[in-house]
């Protein structure tokens, strides 16, 4: 695992990718801080961070596009499969390297709050809290990018898919405003999602019985709950979708509150997509 980690990290700094990522993020942090904090004479650094977080939509696809897509293109993935290391170790090693690249601008940005503190009253806890959240949100988004890079051997394709997914995630809260909020609509939407999940279970396990059991048990629970408490379903689906947006979870940090559940949410997303990445790589062994 350490070998994979070291190789991945060094490859970020052998090419331009690592430098471009760090420079880009720092440039935007600097620009937003200069505009909002200095020119706008507003001492909350979290405000600058919050406003520039959209930059992840552009820089994360660049950071993660090559992680597995390039292995496949160069046929070095065969080496990874043949080495006496598990796919889990490979994914952890690579994800750690991505996280190390991402932590660099986060650490550099730690000098902003004391500088701002010279000119006004800064809430340090809240400012550093937002930097921590910014980092964890980035890692969670990157884990999605890493997963998507296992699906193709083209870096452009991998970056494109990642860009689209992050874009949808960014505008998710706005988009759910257009969804109907009636209880029946929510119930139907949730049922459709359960059926889609059942199809995914069937596709991944090739076991029709498992998929059917999944659909009947979860779908049945959904139906029973809806028949007993239809009121609970009013606006439920838009609510769930809205909560799944990682960018909107960040808003609490701008409001000077440290939301531990949001951090846990980011960690859960990271772990989940790392798991998906391992599954996707293992599946390639089977095809």
């Amino acid at each position: 695992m350490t070998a994979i980690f070291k190789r991945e990290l060094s490859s970020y700094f052998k090419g331009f990718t690592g430098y471009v990522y760090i420079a880009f993020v720092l440039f935007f942090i600097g620009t937003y801080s200069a505009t909002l904090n200095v020119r706008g004479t507003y001492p909350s650094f979290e405000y600058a961070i919050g406003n520039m977080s959209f930059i992840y939509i552009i820089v994360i696809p660049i950071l993660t596009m090559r992680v597995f897509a390039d292995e496949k293109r160069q046929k070095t993935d065969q080496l990874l499969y043949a080495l006496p290391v598990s796919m889990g170790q490979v994914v952890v090693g690579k994800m750690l390297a991505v996280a190390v690249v991402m932590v660099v601008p986060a650490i550099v940005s730690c000098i902003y709050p004391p500088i701002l503190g010279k000119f006004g009253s800064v809430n340090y806890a809240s400012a550093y809290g937002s930097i921590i959240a910014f980092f964890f949100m980035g890692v969670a988004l990157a884990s999605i990018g890493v997963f998507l890079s296992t699906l193709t051997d083209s870096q452009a394709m991998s970056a494109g898919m990642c860009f689209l997914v992050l874009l949808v995630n960014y505008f998710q809260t706005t988009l759910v405003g257009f969804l109907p909020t009636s209880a029946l609509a929510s119930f139907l939407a949730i049922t459709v999602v359960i059926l889609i999940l059942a199809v995914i279970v069937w596709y991944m396990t090739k076991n029709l019985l498992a998929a059917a059991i999944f659909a009947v048990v979860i779908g049945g629970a959904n139906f029973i709950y809806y028949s007993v408490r239809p009121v609970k379903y009013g606006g439920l689906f838009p609510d769930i979708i809205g909560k799944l947006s990682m960018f909107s979870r960040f808003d609490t940090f701008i409001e000077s509150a440290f939301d531990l559940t949001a951090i846990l949410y980011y960690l859960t997303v990271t772990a989940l997509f790392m798991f998906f990445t391992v599954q996707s790589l293992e599946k390639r062994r089977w095809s």
Partner: protein
Amino acid sequence: MIEVRHLVKKYGNHTAVSDLSFDIDGGQVYGFLGPNGAGKSTTMNIITGCLAATSGEVRIGGYDIFEQPEKAKKLVGYLPEHPPLYLDMTAEEYLKFVAEAKGVKRSDMKRQIEYVIEVTRLQEMYKRQTKFLSKGYRQRVGVAQALLGEPELIILDEPTVGLDPRQIIEIRDLIKQLGKTHTVVLSSHILSEIRSVCTSAIIIAKGKMIANDTLENLENIYSGDSYVTLRVKASEIEIRRALAPMDAVMGVECTQLQDGVTEAKIDIDSDFRDKVPEQLFYAFASIDRPILHLAEEHATLEDVFLELTSQADISEESADDTEAKDGETV
């Protein structure tokens, strides 16, 4: 060293490997031989743990490749069809990475890397980025990578494809040298290559194994009779007369060449093969007729290969026929 039992690999409806079973013993150089698309690369990918099998069992040194992959993989060094090099690294960095990933101890790493660089003769190139290396050198870095971690078994998938003749000879020499200390399995569809480096061969066609034996045995079993081609300054009648008393001769075909030279293709009983040249010499010396050329020809690996793979074709076709007939009756 390797035990393969009832290995099956299907891609959708296509069966790439069907019910393959064989054993590979330690300390030999095995040729894995088959026409293009026979399932060589698929089988090698399964043995090295790069690919999962549909069913069947593979054991490397007693460890199941599917159940205990990490232990089994430590015994194997694998060079896939395309050497899996990271082009942004130098050969030295790459070898360090592979050694570390294979769990080579830090104290032993320098020695092992120096050893593989020496064996593969990379001394002048190991500081260069692999993207600037020629195909032959990339192949050598690939072999060097496979040797790290001191595996007992080296598996090479078509190691000489795309190399120039000089590089081919160098890689073959390297394989021969490795064969002295390791068990080597190499796949190829080039028969002269198998002939020049291997001691045993496994022949597969259409995903099925059709032979697994030493080269010598393969040639003996499948060879049938041997031939001697002879050019003598004599007439056809003189040749036939001289050959008549020899027991080993089964038949003669003569062709008249220029200047009173006749070429005779002599079919001989392979049991007496060793004695034939001497007998021929004395037979023609006694009638004062000079032999200008004498060449022994016995069934080559090419003949064995063609015979076996065409047999596989025939049995496949007849199987298709019976299926078709069954279809009709239904």
